[in-house]
């Protein structure tokens, strides 16, 4: 119990720290949303000043931060200047699309990576192992952007899949099932790019952690007592190897909102990525901060979920709190 409480407390502190840093950095960053207006002779400085004060930007940093925290506690993340709308609903409408893309990609990535990594490790040096190692190092060594653009070019040339957006223009007229199919076809390319890049990393981690446990003294000892190969793998090796894999899953979950930025921008997927990129470029202050806080929340949530899973799986971690059970 202690362990969980401590983790929760740490998560809170982390959120406070991230938000404070966000404010500090946006304050330090040069330029503001109104810079372009200033260059426009038709807009008087008084108008701009009035606009600034209506968004509360004329207040000192500490006051703005205090107001923001106060509002954020009530799920109000401020107002977007560019969209002239509250930030939270704006972010959420885009985050839904990002989550659709990343959860699909994440689920498939893990469904592929775990069995493949275990298989490669248990037949070390075999055909599967060598193929996995070679293919994954190839994908890792090519930047994600290059893979994304390359695949996009292929898809466009061969006209296999629709490109851009998440549904066809005429999708309103389609039946429910056809609509679903339409979204899936739009989803396929960005999801495939994500799966390819993520799998090549995760499969290596899974393989490495299984290999490490396979070489452990206690696995040798169990082999010396006549355990069968499969029993050894599934009962003695995998529960231990799950520990680092679960930490890794936490990172995967943490990246659900922020990990697909490049792919979304390249493929034109209407998720958080393009929104935040645009907001940053136009210095739409509260939208940027809101986006970062959203990602931070997922980061902390992902790690928290991983920590809880570790408690279930690993008795050595459970030990810290078990005496209070």
């Amino acid at each position: 119990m202690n362990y969980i409480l401590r983790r929760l407390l740490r998560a809170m502190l982390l959120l406070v720290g991230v938000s404070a840093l966000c404010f500090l950095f946006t304050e330090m960053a040069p330029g503001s949303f109104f810079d372009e207006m200033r260059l426009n002779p038709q807009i008087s400085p008084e108008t701009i000043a009035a606009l600034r004060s209506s968004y509360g930007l004329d207040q000192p940093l500490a006051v703005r931060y205090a107001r923001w925290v106060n509002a954020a506690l009530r799920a109000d993340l401020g107002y977007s200047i560019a969209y002239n709308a509250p930030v939270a609903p704006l972010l959420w409408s885009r985050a839904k699309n990002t989550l659709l893309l990343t959860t699909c990609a994440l689920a498939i990535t893990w469904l592929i990576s775990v069995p493949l990594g275990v298989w490669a490790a248990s037949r070390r040096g075999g055909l599967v192992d060598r193929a996995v190692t070679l293919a994954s190092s190839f994908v890792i060594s090519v930047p994600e952007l290059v893979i994304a653009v390359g695949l996009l070019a292929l898809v466009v040339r061969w006209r296999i899949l629709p490109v851009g957006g998440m549904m066809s223009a005429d999708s309103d007229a389609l039946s429910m099932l056809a609509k679903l199919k339409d979204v899936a076809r739009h989803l396929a390319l960005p999801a495939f790019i994500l799966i390819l890049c993520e799998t090549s990393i995760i499969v290596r981690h899974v393989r490495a952690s299984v290999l490490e446990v396979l070489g452990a003294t206690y696995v040798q000892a169990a082999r010396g007592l006549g355990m069968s190969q499969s029993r050894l793998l599934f009962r003695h090796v995998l529960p231990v190897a799950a520990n680092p894999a679960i930490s890794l899953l936490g990172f995967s979950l943490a990246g659900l909102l922020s990990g697909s930025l490049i792919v979304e921008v390249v493929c034109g997927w209407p998720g958080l990525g393009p929104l935040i990129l645009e907001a940053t470029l136009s210095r739409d202050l509260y939208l940027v901060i809101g986006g970062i806080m959203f990602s931070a929340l997922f980061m902390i949530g992902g790690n928290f979920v991983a920590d809880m899973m570790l408690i279930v799986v690993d008795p050595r971690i459970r030990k810290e709190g078990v005496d209070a059970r």
Partner: protein
Amino acid sequence: MARDHLIRVSDLSVTYCADEGMPIRAVDGISLEISPQEIVGILGESGCGKSTLAGALLRLLPPGAKSEGGILFRGLELMNLPEAELRALRGREIALIPQDPALSLNPVITAGVLIGEVLRAHLPLSAAERRQRVKELLCEVGFDRPEEIYSAYPHQLSGGQRQRIAIAQAMACRPGLLVADEPTGKLDATLQSEIIELLSKIRQQHGTAILIISHDPAILAGFSDRIAVMYAGRIVEVGSSAEIFGRPLHPYTQALMRIASSMITSAGVISRFPAIAGESPDPGCIAEGCRFEPRCSERMDVCSQRYPQTFLPEPSRLVNCFKYGE
């Protein structure tokens, strides 16, 4: 020596083939017999090939190790047994008690299940029967409250308790031979004697033969029936425990015994002094002659020319030294 040996090792060699450099011959032409119910000690410095010998007996060596020679166990030649049959033998007929119980127990499995896993691998028992057997085994290795230990994880146990769990694992299927590789190496002195007592008790009750490997003569004294002294991959002397301790023949054994007795006289003072002047030879490049010759105080001309064959100065005593023949 009894006619029917439990296990008979003849001319066993193990070579580690490293990717680069000379292959290393860790065990070099060892012959040894163990009778049923007998306790045989292997005595030698670290690095002399003791643990490799233990691994070779179970046919469990790291990939890249090549073994030659014969291991005859109950009329079965282990050297050409297929892997599936070897697996059925390990833990069932020959069981290993590993060196460091802190490393040899799986950290995420409870002690009871760890022992149960050995039963599960070899005997057709129901889950309830298995649980019952595990509790009996826990009592047998000296736990008063088996229920508590059953559901404890290795990190919740002390070093001595962990070693008892490892012994219970090894004893689970009542094997004919226990191979104990430095079973007390990581324990303090009082625990050492407890574990040794436990092993003696097991031999008495079940007639289990034990091959015990140690670098410490004090562990083997009074426990093993016979002792084989190993040096640089070879056995240099074999004799009964009393003979080895009372009247060691080989100069290496004599030096070991001098150290052991000097440690006993200066009990309480732990000092790091050079055990025997010089170092044991690099197993990568071994000279023609006797391997102990460079460190030996009684060396002769012949010692550096060829390896001394086995002499029998007394019946049942084997020694490889030119002091006892030419």
